[in-house]
């Protein structure tokens, strides 16, 4: 049993999004979700730098450096898209107009605290925050897409975040390379798990206590789920 690749994780999240939702994808890994959105799902992507209805990457040679996403990569705009200024872009977030924001994270706590902006490294590098705090507070639902453990196998799903917080108690669902979890009032409940992984093995990689639903979904290697959208 292999953990999901980044691409498979992106497919899993893309297929879990509600139809016709307005969605913001955080910089980093969540950006990959855009490549897996089925057209018929009708999801409209929002970008904090002032655009609705982001399209895919442009063909080589057709990049326009005034048409970029929040990660500063060239993108395209789909039919029916709109440009606006940053103040309106953030009003869409803080004002609760974005249905789902999918963000990367370093740590998520059992109560849905999010730490995704500062690894607390003390090498003197300047900190950077961007729009992460605004999104985490404003979107109707915050989903996290991240590896289940760090490169050194340290759990990222923790009882209490040890890194500086981005927002308190905001995360609703977490998608990792091993499972999908919902953040409930009494902690993390696993909704689906990578095919072949036992609950015990998953708990061993997780500092926060996990609960397992009786109808646990199964995640295949390509990121699709059984039952679909579990």
């Amino acid at each position, binding site marked *: 049993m292999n953990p999901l690749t980044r691409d498979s994780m992106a497919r899993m999240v893309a297929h879990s999004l509600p139809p016709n939702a307005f969605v913001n994808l955080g910089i980093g890994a969540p950006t990959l979700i855009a490549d897996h959105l089925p057209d018929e799902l009708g999801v409209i992507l929002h970008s904090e730098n002032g*655009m609705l209805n982001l399209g895919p990457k442009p063909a080589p040679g057709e990049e326009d450096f005034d048409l970029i996403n929040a990660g500063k990569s060239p993108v395209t705009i789909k039919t029916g898209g709109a440009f606006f200024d*940053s103040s309106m*872009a953030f009003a869409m977030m803080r004002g609760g107009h974005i249905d789902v924001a999918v963000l990367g994270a370093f740590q998520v706590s059992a109560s849905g605290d999010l730490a995704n902006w500062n690894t607390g490294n003390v090498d003197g590098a300047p900190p950077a925050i961007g729009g992460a705090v605004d999104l985490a507070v404003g979107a109707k639902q915050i989903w996290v897409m991240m590896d289940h453990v760090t490169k050194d196998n340290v759990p990222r799903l923790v009882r209490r975040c040890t890194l500086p917080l981005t927002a308190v108690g905001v995360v609703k669902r977490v998608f990792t390379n091993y499972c999908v979890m919902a953040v409930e009032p009494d902690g993390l409940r696993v909704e689906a798990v990578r095919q072949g992984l036992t609950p015990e093995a998953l708990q061993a990689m997780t500092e926060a206590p996990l609960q397992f639903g009786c109808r646990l979904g199964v995640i295949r290697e390509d990121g699709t789920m059984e039952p679909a959208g579990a």
Partner: protein
Amino acid sequence: MVGGFGGAGLPRRLIEAVLAAGVRDLTVISNNAGSGAGDLSAWFEAKIVRKIICSYPRSAAAFAEQYRAGTVELELVPQGTLVERIRAAGAGLGGFLSPVGVGTLFEHGKQQLEVGGKTYLLELPLKADFALLRGRAADTMGNVVYNKTGRNHQAVMATAADTVVVEVAEILAPGNLDPEAIITPCIFVDRVFLAERA
């Protein structure tokens, strides 16, 4: 204030012009802190910035070097709060209440107020002596339109500086911009000049 988000809408000619003018001890308000040739990196290399107020000084080698050396001050502001503080200044407001940052490091030093059972931080307005912006086109009256995501912080910055200068790729006679589509009306703009893409 310097408009732009990454390279989108960055007023590169104005950035060069400030360098050539030989000014120093600048306080800069911008989204980023430069990440390559011809952007704000040049100001940090020339050591003319005393303080930067920004949200995302990442991949900013020249800035990071001075930050580590302790020769430049950083005020890190969440991006939505940054633009809204500028908007407050431009709109004549004394500040605003934001839920962003409550329970995090970003609440430090800020007054907290409870309204309707919810906690907010008091955020104060942010204005500048100069706003340096990049538009796609202006008319000779100073009405400005921007280019795609090049609009970013610029439309708000145009409202919040004593002197607003916009470099544009095209200058038109009045009447050639659709009044329904003008983003920055001329009341905010002091100077426009023609600048090909750097």
